[in-house]
């Protein structure tokens, strides 16, 4: 029975009747329908908000944890740098201060030598001869005897002797002065030596001061890390992201290197391992080649750890120095063995390729082609392959450095990414809850449009001037329902907030 046949033969009337009945039904159940919509909306919105808040809290916790991890990593880095600075300072002090007794002895020796030489220069020259007493005796002679020829001769002789002696004395004096000058000149070398030593000491002290200033800076940085200041965090974040991408690029390059290495040894490995066996769809020989490369990288990691370049394995790092060095030598021994194995495999690969080529030429061209004198083949490819086979494992060893950086910074970068995803999801859930709220309003409005007739009538009745004090019961009841609808949602939201 269709709607049009509700009243047989009166389709229009049937339709009108049905629409009228539907409108009235919608009007009478309006309050319940609105409540139902509100409750459903409330249910969804509250759950979405709860979820959003939970994700936001997770994001915040992750962010906090990231910060802790970042600062801890930074602290470790600063600690390592500080440690290195102290080692440098220790070496410097050990190297320079160890020589200080020698320098001091040298300076003292120079000073005493200079004192000796200065002492020599201060020696008083020999006194004048005692001819002055003779002159004094002549001056005491009587005037009558002064004009005597004998006296004249005597004076003449004295005069000559005086001149001669004066010349001798002057000559001796000059010689003496010259000697003193020579002594002073030789003392110049000691001065210079002394100056040089003192300059050297000054330079060392300056260097020491510079190191001390560096240590001060490092200590300040370390202090910031320990305090967990925002500045330290900002610096670490920038540094961490940069390091992450750099290590990623370097590791990608190393990955290509490993791929080349794999291709170099995959074919000859089929001679060593059964080529007809597979594991999970991969040839055992290929897996063997990959395992060898992974072993090389692992041994390389251990070696780098043992020599103190990386700090991935605390067990190795905290070994005694002697044991650590033994461990490093063992790793190097294994690594070199693997290098030789790879070089041998590369050689075998070349032999296999040549054999395959020979077989193909035999199958294609027959016995004559196979036994034909081969062209003068260059051994360069073989040498190249063997060199690559030997060198590549050693190069792959250095992947430990970017790998360490990748591990440490990757944790932070990944954590940051997760935080951003959490925040985005939380925001999206909040937006969705808002959208659902608005959608609920729109649905209610659409509902009201569908039963606009009775609502309009109700509105008219409400607007009519009231004759008696008693209000019309139905209109009030509807209004009450309408008023009560909205606060219920708000109250519920508040109650959820309080609960949370």
């Amino acid at each position, binding site marked *: 029975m269709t709607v049009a046949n509700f009243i047989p033969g009166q389709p229009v009337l049937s339709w009108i009747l049905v629409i009228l009945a539907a409108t009235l039904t919608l009007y009478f159940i309006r309050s319940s329908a609105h409540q139902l919509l509100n409750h459903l909306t409330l249910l969804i919105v509250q759950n979405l908000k709860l979820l959003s808040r939970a994700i936001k809290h997770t994001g915040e916790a992750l962010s906090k944890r990231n910060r802790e991890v970042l600062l801890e990593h930074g602290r470790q880095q600063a600690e390592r740098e500080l440690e290195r600075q102290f080692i440098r300072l220790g070496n410097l002090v050990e190297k320079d201060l160890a020589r200080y007794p020698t320098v001091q002895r040298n300076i003292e020796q120079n000073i005493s030598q200079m004192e000796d030489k200065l002492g020599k220069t201060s020696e008083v020259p020999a006194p004048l001869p005692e001819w002055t007493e003779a002159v004094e005796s002549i001056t005491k002679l009587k005037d009558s005897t002064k004009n005597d020829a004998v006296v004249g001769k005597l004076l003449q002789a004295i005069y000559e002797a005086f001149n001669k002696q004066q010349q001798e004395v002057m000559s001796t004096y000059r010689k003496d002065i010259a000697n003193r000058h020579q002594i002073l000149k030789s003392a110049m070398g000691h001065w210079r030596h002394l100056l040089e030593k003192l300059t050297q000491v000054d330079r060392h002290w300056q260097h020491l001061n510079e190191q001390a200033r560096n240590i001060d800076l490092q200590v300040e940085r370390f202090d910031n890390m320990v305090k967990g200041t925002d500045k330290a965090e900002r610096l670490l974040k920038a540094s961490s992201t940069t390091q992450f991408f750099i290590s990623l690029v370097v590791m990608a390059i190393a990955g290509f290197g490993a791929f080349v290495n794999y291709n170099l040894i995959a074919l000859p490995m089929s001679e060593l391992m*059964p080529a*007809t*066996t597979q594991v999970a769809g991969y040839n055992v020989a290929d897996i063997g080649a990959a395992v060898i490369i992974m072993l090389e990288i692992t041994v390389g990691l251990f070696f780098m750890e043992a020599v103190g370049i990386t700090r991935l394995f605390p067990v190795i790092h905290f070994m005694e120095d002697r044991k650590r060095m033994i461990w490093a030598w063992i790793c190097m021994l294994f690594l070199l063995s693997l290098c030789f194995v790879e070089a041998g495999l590369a050689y075998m690969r070349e032999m296999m390729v040549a054999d395959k080529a020979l077989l193909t030429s*035999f199958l294609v061209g027959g016995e004559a082609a196979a036994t034909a004198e081969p062209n003068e083949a260059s051994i360069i490819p073989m040498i190249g392959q063997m060199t690559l086979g030997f060198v590549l494992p050693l190069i792959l060893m250095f992947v430990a450095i970017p790998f360490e950086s990748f591990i440490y910074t990757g944790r932070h970068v990944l954590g940051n990414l997760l935080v951003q995803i959490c925040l985005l999801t939380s925001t999206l859930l909040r937006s969705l809850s808002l959208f659902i709220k608005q959608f609920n309003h729109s649905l209610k409005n659409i509902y009201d449009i569908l039963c606009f007739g009775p609502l309009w009538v109700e509105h008219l009745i409400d607007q009519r001037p009231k004759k008696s004090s008693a209000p019309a019961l139905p209109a009030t009841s509807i209004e009450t329902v309408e008023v009560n609808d909205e606060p219920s949602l708000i109250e519920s939201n508040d109650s959820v907030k309080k609960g949370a």
Partner: protein
Amino acid sequence: MTRVLLIALLTLVTLGGCTEQKPNTGLYLLLDTSGTYTKELKKAQQIIHYYLANLEPGDSFAVARIDSGSFSEKDIIAKVTFDHRPSRANEQKRVFAATINDFINTVESSAYTDINGGLLLASEYLNETQADRKIVMVFSDMQEELPKGYKRDFELKLSDYEVVALNVTKLRSDNQDPQQYMDRMTQWQTRVEQSGGKWRMINDLEREDSLSL
């Protein structure tokens, strides 16, 4: 410590359990040596060389002749399962090629052509090899002629087999009545397919892609 050993043992057992044999191929080539068809054997030698170059360690390859009574091990010219070591496999290929070369240089024509006997022998050999892919190639004009008293109406079991007819030359009678040729081919195809095998025919031996396994 015991736990670590247990885990290591478990890992080894798991890996061992995952180990499987690489899918291998078993190829059996039947060469028709009847009448004037022996002139075509040089082509067959090239095909054998082609497959020798392409077969891998672990694969099996056998070449047998079709003569008056082909259901006999004496008709197998050479057979080999290639070693898992490539260098050893290459050596086996050389020996195989030399054996085939000797045969082709000394072969004598047979009076009859027992193709069904050859097919039965091929199926038995390939069953023994337990190859994952079993291919029988028949280098012949597919005209069966049996000596008196030979019965070849047995049921062939060729499930999972591919039967490839190679270089099916047209006989003089085929030229006179091509329907004979078509009937002959249809008859072989029906027999192979009814036995559970797949039928294929390659006449253009220059096309490498059609020959590829």
